[in-house]
């Protein structure tokens, strides 16, 4: 039998997760609706006008995305809960890091897809100013979502072994993600209003992505291993 390479295994896991998602559309529908609701509630909670976007647009956008990402990341390992599919994955002749990488790629793609759907809606609902730099916002989203998906996949795998999985995931993910969330919000705010410098925040995001991706890669055996 031919040995499968690490990347091929990761690609296979990712393709499988994406196929399940495309067939059921469970995560995308639930997340999309959830994020949309958060945005609408925000507009009720704070008087919604153009000045709100200027003051808090970055935070608003990311809180909505963050909640949606939590739903997606929880689902990443919820999919494995039935029919001992997690055990199946773990006894497959593949390194844990490759499985985790595949899971990560699928979650990253799903969350990015959702963001692509919701960003135009955000622009319309909150009347983003004309001078907003969408190129910068997209780069911030690519980097920030990477941070959320990398850490989130790791913690989602960790929580898959515990009781109260859905409760625990935000408890673990949110505190560790504070620097990334701060950077995403600040950079997005700079790009939305055109005031200030975003470079520092983007550098912070890149550094954060590198450090935590390497760490999750190195510690993959710790969270995905049968007794």
């Amino acid at each position, binding site marked *: 039998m031919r040995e499968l390479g690490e990347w091929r295994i990761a690609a296979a896991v990712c393709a499988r997760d994406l196929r399940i998602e495309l067939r059921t559309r469970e995560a995308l529908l639930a997340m999309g609706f959830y994020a949309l609701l958060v945005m609408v509630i925000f507009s009720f909670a704070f008087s919604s006008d153009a000045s709100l976007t200027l003051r808090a647009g970055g935070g608003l956008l990311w809180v909505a995305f963050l909640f949606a990402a939590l739903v997606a990341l929880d689902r990443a390992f919820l999919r494995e809960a039935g029919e001992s599919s997690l055990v199946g994955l773990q006894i497959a002749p593949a390194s844990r890091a490759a499985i985790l990488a595949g899971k990560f790629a699928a979650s990253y793609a799903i969350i990015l897809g959702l963001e692509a759907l919701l960003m135009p809606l955000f622009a319309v609902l909150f009347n983003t100013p004309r001078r907003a730099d969408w190129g910068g916002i997209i780069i911030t989203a690519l980097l920030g979502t990477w941070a959320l998906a990398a850490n989130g996949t790791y913690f989602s795998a960790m929580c898959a072994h515990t009781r109260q999985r859905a409760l625990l995931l935000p408890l673990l993910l949110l505190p560790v993600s*504070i620097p990334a969330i701060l*950077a995403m919000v600040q950079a997005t705010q700079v790009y939305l209003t055109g005031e200030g410098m975003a470079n520092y925040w983007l550098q912070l995001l890149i550094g954060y992505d590198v450090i935590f991706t390497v760490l999750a890669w190195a510690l993959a055996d710790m969270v995905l291993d049968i007794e």
Partner: protein
Amino acid sequence: MASTSSLRSPSTWVFAATLGLLIVSLWWNLIGAPTEATMGTIQRIFYYHVPSAAAAWTALLLNAGASLWYLIRRSPAADALAVAGAEVGLAFLTIVLITGPIWARPVWGVWWVWDARLTLTLAMWVMYASYLILRQLTPPGSLQPRLAAALAVFFAADIPIDYMSIRWWRTQHPSPVLFGGPDSGLAPRMMTALLISMAAFLAVMGCLVWLRYRQEMARGRLAALRQRQLLLEES
């Protein structure tokens, strides 16, 4: 057989010395140190706030080191030390977070500001609380220490980045009085009170970590014995 309750046990003398140190520091904090000129008596909370922070950081560093050691060696002792460090560290962080606002209200005029150190301390409190919750929710066995250690290493990597990022954001907290810049510093008698208090709090932290560590090791041994008994009964 070694008895822990006996007066001859070295830990008894360490605990007694710690208690003595605490009483001495109480005198220094309340009477020995002069009253601060502008802030008045409320400044004395500083002798509890800063040493608690030092004790919390030391205990959490122990947690990080022990967790890393567990990942490398899988030793139950390292796991016991990690639990002890996280629990005691969280307790001291709680003292920091309570004494801070009590001081800030009269001096800054507000209970809380989202300044770098305050935000980081609160973030750390949430992190280590979630660490203990994870331990609670993981089924006992070899999985629990492994997940906990993996999480603790993530936290340890996160805290410096956290601090840096929040510093860029905003800063209002008074600058350090120990090893600070040339302008920092304290009146000599205030410094004496602070150092004695620091020593007392670090000693209390050490005693608590030691007790908790012993307890955790005993718990592990008890669980192993129970398992053996069950196996013997079955065969």
